[in-house]
């Protein structure tokens, strides 16, 4: 299995090649190199997956493989940072997801980004991102994961700010970087705490289910919580930042300033689920050492999913709707992890979360790429500029509809199966939680179809030039993703990925399934009624609850709250006084010393007269002083 190293090396070498010599290549060649190299990587990833999932099971469990692992930095005999590749069910699953979506995006971008300035740079950054993300998922220890975690953050920053001449893109890239970096501070602190008490970075040791690993932490508490709870909560903060959990979600809607294929790759399918992956990776540790943190993660996920779903209902920018929908869906995955236990039916949530991660990556990438095709031809993100597009863009229309049905949870599309498992898991945890999440699922169906009808039906807008279907390079990825979305639900996912590694056969909970489908259908009907053709009910509703509507439009003022905290409180009350102190007191003191030195230098000028008699006198005086000094001591 040593060839798995190539999965990492190929994108990295492509990045170096395109990054260093890209400007000397013609754009088409640079794009071709990037896509071809990624196609190879994808092939390798599929081979790995095929080989891995068909490998013999030990006691019914797929083995964890370490094809490559070497010691990199040694701190103590026990504590050392290794670099390597870990293959286990979720990392292999992620390899498939990342390479698939990334390949689709690479192909799609050949058409979408055609003629853009910096085309080669774009492909270089895409390769860098793919490399980082792949490195993150195969990391065998938490420190390597952190290294790639940061690399992912950097490449995301570079891609959001790709249109660096647009101030909004620059601001968005900075915002994304600062917010996630802020959260990563929590991650780093968590890693330090964890490694200090367990004396290991290795996932293998941490998640073996052996509580002796963290016995050193037993009894150590801080502010009433055990130190393991602190460590794992801090690590979750890092995950919450990348996965845009409330209240660290503010960067994701703005990140839509990047090119749309980038949004599909990074901000829908791969990077934003890194937080979910992180929790899943450490899942046995959460269950054993800090079950209360896990429950907290569930609540954060539940609240985030509802909050984002409400906001998504009133957004008018189609990419923003998708962004909030992403936040909401990641909330679903977090909830599923939060309510899960280990083993058998208890571990349903874990399996469901990973399943939803997989299906969501496909249909959300499809939605974004479809939105990209629309934006490509319309030249705007605003819903009001669209409408009636189904006649002009049949392929985009069909594939977009498939994705909408999938996310709404209509059988037999993939989203139905994964979402249904999540709902079943929440009902098993607590009926209230189940009801809450079902309501959110209904909202999801509603806002997705609001989006769908506003784009493809509704009142046709006046177009500057007639919209046209996207070129083949963009349509083909849409088709492929739509096919996956149609059939992925039938994958026996529990057979490959489950909380304890034992095969788990998915069986539908009939009550939950019927209820959720009914809710989805009702929500879709309402959306159809409201938005398919002109209807004044939405406007009447807005007039009835003007304040609620305005608040939702402003995302419940979370951004404003952050601005208030930073600008009004931190900048004004802390930064300004410190800056003043630095400029006036510290600089003033130093300037004062400097001018004093100058003045003193001129004052001693007379000392050097040029007369040898005076020199001799000083000489003798000095000698006598020295003798006197020594005798006195």
């Amino acid at each position, binding site marked *: 299995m040593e060839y798995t190293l190539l999965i990492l090396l190929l994108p990295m070498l492509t990045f170096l090649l395109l990054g260093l010599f890209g400007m000397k290549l013609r754009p088409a060649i640079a794009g071709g190199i990037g896509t071809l190299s990624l196609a190879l990587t994808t092939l390798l990833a599929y081979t790995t997956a095929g080989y891995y999932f068909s490998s013999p099971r030990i006691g019914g469990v797929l083995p964890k493989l370490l094809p490559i692992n070497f010691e990199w930095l040694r701190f103590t005999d026990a504590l050392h940072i290794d670099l390597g590749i870990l293959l286990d069910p979720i990392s292999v699953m992620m390899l498939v997801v990342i390479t698939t979506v990334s390949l689709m995006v690479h192909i799609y971008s050949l058409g979408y980004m055609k003629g853009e300035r910096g085309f080669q740079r774009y492909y270089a950054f895409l390769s860098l991102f793919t490399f980082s993300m792949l490195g993150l998922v195969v990391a065998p220890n938490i420190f390597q994961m952190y290294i790639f975690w940061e690399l992912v953050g950097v490449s995301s920053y570079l891609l959001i700010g790709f249109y660096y001449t647009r101030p909004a893109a620059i601001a968005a890239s900075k915002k994304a970087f600062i917010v996630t970096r802020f959260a990563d501070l929590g991650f780093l602190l968590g890693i330090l705490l964890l490694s200090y008490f367990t004396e290991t970075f290795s996932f293998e040791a941490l998640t073996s289910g052996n509580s002796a690993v963290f016995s050193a932490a037993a009894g150590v508490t801080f502010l009433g919580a055990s130190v393991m709870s602190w460590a794992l909560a801090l690590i979750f903060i890092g995950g919450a930042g990348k996965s845009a959990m409330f209240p660290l979600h503010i960067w994701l809607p703005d990140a839509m300033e990047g090119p749309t294929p980038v949004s599909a790759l990074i901000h829908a399918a791969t990077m934003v689920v890194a937080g979910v992956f992180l929790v899943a990776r450490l899942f046995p540790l959460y269950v054993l050492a800090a079950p209360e943190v896990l429950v907290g993660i569930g609540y954060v996920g539940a609240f985030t999913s509802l909050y984002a779903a409400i906001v998504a209902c009133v957004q008018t920018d189609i990419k923003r709707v998708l962004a909030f929908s992403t936040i909401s869906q990641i909330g679903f995955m977090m909830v599923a992890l939060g309510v899960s236990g280990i083993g058998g039916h208890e571990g349903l949530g874990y399996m469901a979360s990973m399943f939803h991660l997989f299906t969501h990556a496909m249909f959300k990438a499809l939605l974004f790429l479809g939105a990209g095709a629309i934006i490509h031809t319309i030249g705007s993100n605003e819903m009001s500029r669209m409408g009636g597009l189904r006649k002009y863009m049949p392929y985009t229309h069909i594939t977009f509809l498939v994705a909408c049905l999938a996310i709404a949870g209509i059988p037999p599309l993939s989203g139905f199966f994964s979402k249904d498992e999540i709902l079943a898991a929440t009902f098993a945890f607590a009926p209230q939680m189940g009801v809450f999440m079902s309501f959110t699922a209904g909202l999801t169906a509603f806002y997705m179809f609001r989006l769908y009808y506003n784009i493809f039906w509704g009142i046709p807008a006046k177009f500057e030039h007639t919209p046209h279907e996207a070129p083949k390079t963009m349509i083909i990825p849409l088709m492929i993703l739509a096919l996956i979305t149609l059939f992925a639900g039938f994958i026996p996912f529990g057979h490959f990925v489950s909380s304890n590694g034992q095969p788990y056969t998915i069986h539908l909970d009939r009550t939950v399934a019927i209820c959720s489908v009914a809710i989805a259908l009702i929500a879709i009907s309402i959306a159809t009624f409201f938005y398919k053709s002109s209807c004044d009910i939405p406007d009447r509703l807005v007039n009835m609850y003007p304040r609620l509507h305005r608040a939702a439009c402003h995302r419940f003022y979370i951004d404003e709250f952050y601005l208030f905290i930073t600008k009004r409180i931190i900048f004004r009350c802390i930064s300004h006084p410190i800056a003043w102190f630095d400029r006036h007191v510290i600089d003033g003191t130093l300037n004062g010393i400097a001018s004093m*030195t100058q003045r003193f230098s001129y004052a001693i000028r007379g000392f050097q007269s040029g007369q040898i008699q005076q020199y001799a006198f000083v*000489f003798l005086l000095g000698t006598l002083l020295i003798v006197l000094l020594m005798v006195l001591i």
Partner: protein
Amino acid sequence: MGYSNFLLLKEELSLVAIIILLIVYDLFGSQKKQQYIHPVACVLFLLHTLLNFFPPEACEAFGGMYACSPMGSIVKTILNIGTLLILLQARNWVNSESVIIRRGEFYTILLCTLLGMYFMISANNFLLFFIGLEATSIPMAILSAYDKYKHQSAEAGAKFILSATFASGLSLYGISLIYGTVGTLYFADIPAGIDGSPLQIMAFGFFVVGLFFKISLVPFHQWTADVYEGAPTTATSYFSVISKGAAAFVLMSLLFKVFGNLIIEWQAIFYAVIIATITLANLSAIRQQNLKRFLAYSSISQAGYIMLGVISGSAAGMTSLVYYILVYMVSNLAAFGVIAIIEYRTGKIDIRDYNGLYTTNPRLSVVMMLALFSLAGIPPFAGFFSKFFIFAAAAQQGFYVLVFIALLNTIISLYYYLLVVKAMFIEKSETPVAPIRSDSYTRISLIACTIGILVLGLLSGIYEHIGLFSFGI
């Protein structure tokens, strides 16, 4: 006493041989052959340096008057390298119109001072030591007055000889008092007789200021600026590194070997003298316009730093002092080399004459900049490491306040060193120095200095090698 004793004086003998050869060559060589005296001198001296490169075993000769030691030999080698660099740089000047008729004597006189230093280093008896001291001083006065038709040079010579006589007189007085109280002049026997009586302390005080004068520590430094400014630049660079380095080492080994019993007393005066030296020299350097005066004050403050190695009284102090001398030598000689070539070609010597030097002479400017950076102690140049080691040696012995004051002073020194860099690189000038093509001798010397500045700090082996032969109290 067998004549085989002479064989132990290998270093001195080979130097004397060169001196005699050069005198003969100068006296009897034809007019045509005279023009080759510079390469001949350089080659002979290079041979001498190589011949004595590897330190010999420790030995004693002439009944204990003379002692050779590996450490002394290392210092002699360092002095040799420095003298060789200066010889290379001297070519322009010795062939200039007013000097050319006397050029043969220059080599003899220069090497005679070096011979004096050899004896100072190897002396094991105050008598031999004093002879070495005088053998160093008197030719140096001749060197500083070498441009005798120039008013300033003659004045420098006069000032030097008067001051030196004064200092030697005090020193000799001190030695006589030591002899009076201890009853011997042998270094090996004196420590047993040192009991710290006021008379002995006074004797020590008088003796030691003679060396303070040579190293130009405050308040015995006042001759320095005038002499450095007036003397020919070649002589100035010789004073500032070779003479100073030798005297600093000799002072340290005397204090360690002979006056170790008085460590409390001399550490106290060093404390005061170091602070006064560094601070006063730095403050004076700030307002200098003439580059030679500027470097005179800079070298005074560097002498203050060198004394940090002495005050520690430890083996680490000795290692770092010798290392400091080596690094200071290449840095200062690089600076003087640039100044000398510009002075001989254009007669310009003020800082403001260097405005815009980079536009016309980029290579000379870069060498000068590296030299100044190294003198200021900016990493990664050698000067940083030498300062670091010498500060560390003093700090090891608990002189934290002193090291702190010295550190503050490096900031001041950075300011005035950067003034020159600023003039060369940033200031604009209507009439910058015209482009200069230096002769190959100077170029070799400057390249060697630059390599030294760049690699001496990075080659840890040198410091460790010196450390093998160091000793403390």
